[in-house]
């Protein structure tokens, strides 16, 4: 029952992007195509879950006033693992995501979950929290990327949708990212207003 609540929290009630409003830079920057969004989700979820596990394991031996540097170092190590793995096995993904792979380190979601959840809860809950936050993050990214890719490039997973149609280039650039996320937040508010405050 408790695990179900953690899972639902990450995906909907405390969705990191739509409700808490953190981790916005990778969200807006890499959602130019659905496949980029999926790779970013995979990388972030891996780092999030692994750092949650490690932080939860050492929570009792970390001196409280230097915990933030320790958490950052743990997160940075996992990010380097992801960076090197992608460089070795998926070079074109590494090229497409570019600077946003090293920038996973400063993604507020990961440090936020270490501080808020993993340093206070058991290992199993921390794993589930990491996975559910990753899924919540990923769902938002994929929906955003779906709209931006179909409208801005007239493509989906690299295949052209309507031959001969001129796509609106703005959607694939920075303004499209801001405006699409703005409309997504609006839709979220409308749904919440309709079904009470997101309660079950």
């Amino acid at each position: 029952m408790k695990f179900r609540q953690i899972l639902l929290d990450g995906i909907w009630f405390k969705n990191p992007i739509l409700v808490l409003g953190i981790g916005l830079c990778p969200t807006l920057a890499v959602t130019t195509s659905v496949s980029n969004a999926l790779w970013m989700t995979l990388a972030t979820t891996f780092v999030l879950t692994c750092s949650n596990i490690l932080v939860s394991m050492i929570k009792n031996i970390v001196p409280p006033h230097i915990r933030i540097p320790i958490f950052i170092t743990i997160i940075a190590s996992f990010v380097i693992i992801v960076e090197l793995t992608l460089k070795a096995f998926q070079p074109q993904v590494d090229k497409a995501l570019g600077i946003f792979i090293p920038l996973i380190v400063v993604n507020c979601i990961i440090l936020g979950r270490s501080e808020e959840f993993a340093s206070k809860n058991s290992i199993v809950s921390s794993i589930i929290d990491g996975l559910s936050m990753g899924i919540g993050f990923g769902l938002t990214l994929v929906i955003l990327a779906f709209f931006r890719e179909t409208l801005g490039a007239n493509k989906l997973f690299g295949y052209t949708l309507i031959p001969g149609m001129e796509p609106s280039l703005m959607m694939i650039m920075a303004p499209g990212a801001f405006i699409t996320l703005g409309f997504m937040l609006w839709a979220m508010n409308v749904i919440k207003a309709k079904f009470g405050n997101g309660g079950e």
Partner: protein
Amino acid sequence: MEIKLLFTILISTIFINNYVLSQLLGLCPFLGVSKKLDSALGMGLAVIFVMSMASFFTYFIYKFVLIPYEITYLRTIAFILIIASLVQLVEMVIEKVSPPLYQSLGIFLPLITTNCAVLGVTVLNVDSGFFNANLGLLKSVIQGMGAGIGFTLALLLMAGIRERLELADIPKNLKGLPITFVVAGLLALAFLGFSGMRI
């Protein structure tokens, strides 16, 4: 010729490749601190300083420690530690030298560590190959400073608009974050106009 190149770097990081509005870096503080003009200005100045200093120090660490020992894959971890200690240092110096300024900046200073634009500019310095270039140190610092100024510009514009948005009549569900994103999108659209600029 070199002077012209430095000027080009400065102008292009401020306007053409504005870190917030066209490269989408540093969005959390951009949305978090842009509610009031004066706190936006304080945050912006602190970010300009930290970005210039971070570019300066990471240049030396990368060139004289990471490259000679062939451990460049550790750059992420090295840079984030440099930035974190730099922010801590700035905080201590400001507290000692000017308590009033520390009071007004107080809460924003530690937040700069997790500003992805700061780590972003140091990583971009590496990717632009400034470490082997002629006058590389100067170019890195100028890129850092330009990024900071561009961030401050975007922050100030946004804060000015948001102060007026408070009084505007907006549909209930669009209030707050959603309308802020739409406004940021329009600002980004305006900045897109700079991309045709030739210097």
